[in-house]
């Protein structure tokens, strides 16, 4: 027989029981919740103890004041007894500038330092929306400014090169009403390329000879250490994202040729090891270029590292595009937005947001891959500079210290990128799922 029931009052929500909270409950729950977990916890403690107890003396006995590795060792032996180990940080004290700048002329160290500080000024409006949008103008001129600070030479070279972009911009602004957006962009690109090919050199040369103002020029073979790694890394990161987006959209395009070219580019570049591309940059490109063209080695490496990263990014972004429901495209179409408006306002903001972890991990990978330029004779911080330091009789045999130092700096930069990506994900989280 079914019993009838009618609730007279609705129940209020109550607090959970107290046994669910507190430090002891946490420890029991997370560390000692069963025999297996208890054993694993104890094992973990033993491993941590062993690691600390073996390496701690080496860290504690570290020597900062010495002029050679043998002097370091005798100081350690004197203070901690025969057979004791100790780090020889004195090497860093003497050679830190090579890890940072390579063979960059010491009297010009202020230039890369200034460029590095200004890098953050230029990045601020890109990374944080709270910075006024007008600061983006500085971001736009920063690449030319940075190039001039690092390589020096007459100031007219970067200014005249930037004029190409100004020409492109003017063409888009003034011709778009006659030719439409794609037509005016194409006309602008043609005009800019003509400018770079035929007018840039004479104009810059004319200005430089009449208004000689510039910095002492520094050749690419003086670059090394983190100056080189950051130059290549930051440029490649900045250029690979837009190229990656274009490739990802190209791969999804309905236009057969655009699609085929994008797929071919992505698959070819991804299918080849980065070192192959670097060798191409250093050796093969010379054969294809006209004789006597001086095409800077760092620039060549940057271009191929950018391509390499762009191919990976394209696939990461394609994943983001594929994750969007078809309804988003349809809603954009139904509202009358054209293809580029729909991509820019609806599709890409969402696809890029989904791809943030993948994009940032590609960036981190790219930054660490800059050490591979050692294979084409550039002085990367990990192998290039370390080898030079060890070639010195005073520091011959030093092994852990340079790697720990270089590794620590890489870690700080990559960890920073990772934390920023987490901040960005939290900030852009609007779906409240």
């Amino acid at each position, binding site marked *: 027989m079914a019993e009838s029931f009618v609730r007279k009052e609705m129940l209020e929500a109550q607090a959970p029981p107290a046994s669910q909270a507190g430090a002891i409950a946490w420890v029991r729950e997370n560390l000692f919740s069963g025999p297996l977990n208890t054993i694993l916890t104890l094992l973990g403690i033993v491993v941590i103890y062993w690691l600390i107890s073996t390496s701690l003396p080496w860290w504690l006995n570290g020597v900062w004041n010495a002029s050679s590795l043998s002097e370091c060792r005798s100081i350690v032996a004197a203070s901690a007894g025969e057979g004791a180990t100790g780090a020889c940080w004195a090497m860093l004290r003497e050679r830190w500038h090579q890890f940072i700048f390579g063979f960059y002329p010491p009297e010009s160290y202020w230039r890369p330092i200034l460029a590095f500080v200004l890098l953050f000024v230029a990045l601020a409006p890109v990374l944080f929306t709270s910075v006024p949008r007008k600061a983006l103008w500085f971001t736009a001129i920063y690449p030319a400014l940075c190039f001039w600070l690092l390589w020096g030479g007459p100031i007219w070279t970067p200014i005249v090169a930037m004029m190409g972009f100004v020409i492109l911009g003017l063409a888009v602004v003034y011709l778009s009403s006659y030719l439409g957006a794609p037509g005016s962009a194409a006309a602008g690109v043609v005009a800019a390329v003509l400018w770079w090919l035929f007018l840039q050199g004479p104009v810059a040369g004319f200005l430089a000879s009449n208004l000689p103002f510039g910095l002492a020029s520094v050749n690419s073979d003086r670059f090394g250490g983190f100056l080189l790694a950051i130059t290549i890394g930051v440029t490649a990161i900045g250029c690979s994202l837009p190229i990656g987006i274009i490739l990802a959209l190209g791969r999804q395009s309905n236009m057969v040729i655009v699609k085929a070219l994008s797929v071919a580019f992505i698959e070819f570049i991804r299918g080849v090891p980065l070192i192959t591309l670097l060798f191409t940059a250093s050796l093969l490109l010379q054969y294809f270029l006209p004789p006597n063209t001086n095409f800077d080695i760092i620039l060549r490496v940057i271009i191929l590292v950018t391509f390499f990263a762009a191919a990976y990014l394209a696939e990461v972004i394609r994943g983001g595009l594929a994750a969007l429901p078809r309804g988003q495209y349809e809603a954009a179409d139904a509202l009358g*937005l054209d293809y580029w408006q729909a991509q820019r306002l609806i599709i890409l903001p969402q696809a890029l947001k989904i791809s943030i972890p993948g994009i940032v991990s590609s960036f981190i990978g790219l930054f660490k891959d800059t050490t591979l330029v050692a294979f084409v004779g550039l002085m990367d911080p990990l192998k290039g500079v370390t080898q030079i330091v060890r070639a010195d009789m005073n520091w011959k045999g030093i092994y852990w210290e340079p790697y720990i130092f270089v590794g620590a700096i890489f870690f700080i930069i990559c960890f920073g990128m990772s934390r920023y990506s987490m901040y960005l994900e939290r900030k852009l989280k*609007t779906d409240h799922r």
Partner: protein
Amino acid sequence: MAEAQKMAVSDEVAIQITGMNKWYGQFHVLRDIDMTVNRGERIVICGPSGSGKSTLIRCINRLEEHQSGHIVVDGTELTSDLKNIDKVRSEVGMVFQHFNLFPHLTILENCTLAPIWVRKIPKKEAEETAMHFLRKVKIPEQANKYPGQLSGGQQQRVAIARSLCMRPRIMLFDEPTSALDPEMIKEVLDTMIELAQEGMTMLCVTHEMGFAQAVANRVIFMDKGQIVEQNEPKEFFSNPQSDRTKLFLSQILGH
């Protein structure tokens, strides 16, 4: 029901479809569709799933391409000419089954995006229009929230407001209440009824037969990609002619 008679239908043609056919690969989804919609008409399209009813209204704003025949919307023929397609799309509003709001934009931004970028209306004016329509669908207080924070019924009302912000002359509804909980269906239908009473030309794919009886001036029944029967709602429900229609009505009204 008295309201329905009050709503005037003019002689002006809003949509003219003649001899239209569509295939998905080998599959013939829409067969020889002939249909004229006058300005101010409220048409409900029903039929079993797979009958092509959604595809039909999606052809009207070219979300789907037709392979033969003609579709003329507001005097503009839909061909592969992108200019015509964009023109038709900006005149025709569409509401989807799954709302398709933009989750990365606030409710207000969802409503102002197309007016600002497609109609080139100044931001301030677009926001005023958006608030006007959000008040109309009775959720102005949600303007600065994100779609994910709203209930399904609220989201669908935002989707209606978003379409109205483009000041469309025709509205298409593709099963607007099918993804909603029963308690939320009414708030969306009320919004649609209000819109019909203001004289909007509406084509609505739905199984809400109460809605059809309340506001439609014509009900179209489709099966296997064809228009099987059409009539004014009273006749359609009380005196269906074809056997297929009778079967369909007995199944959806039978319980």
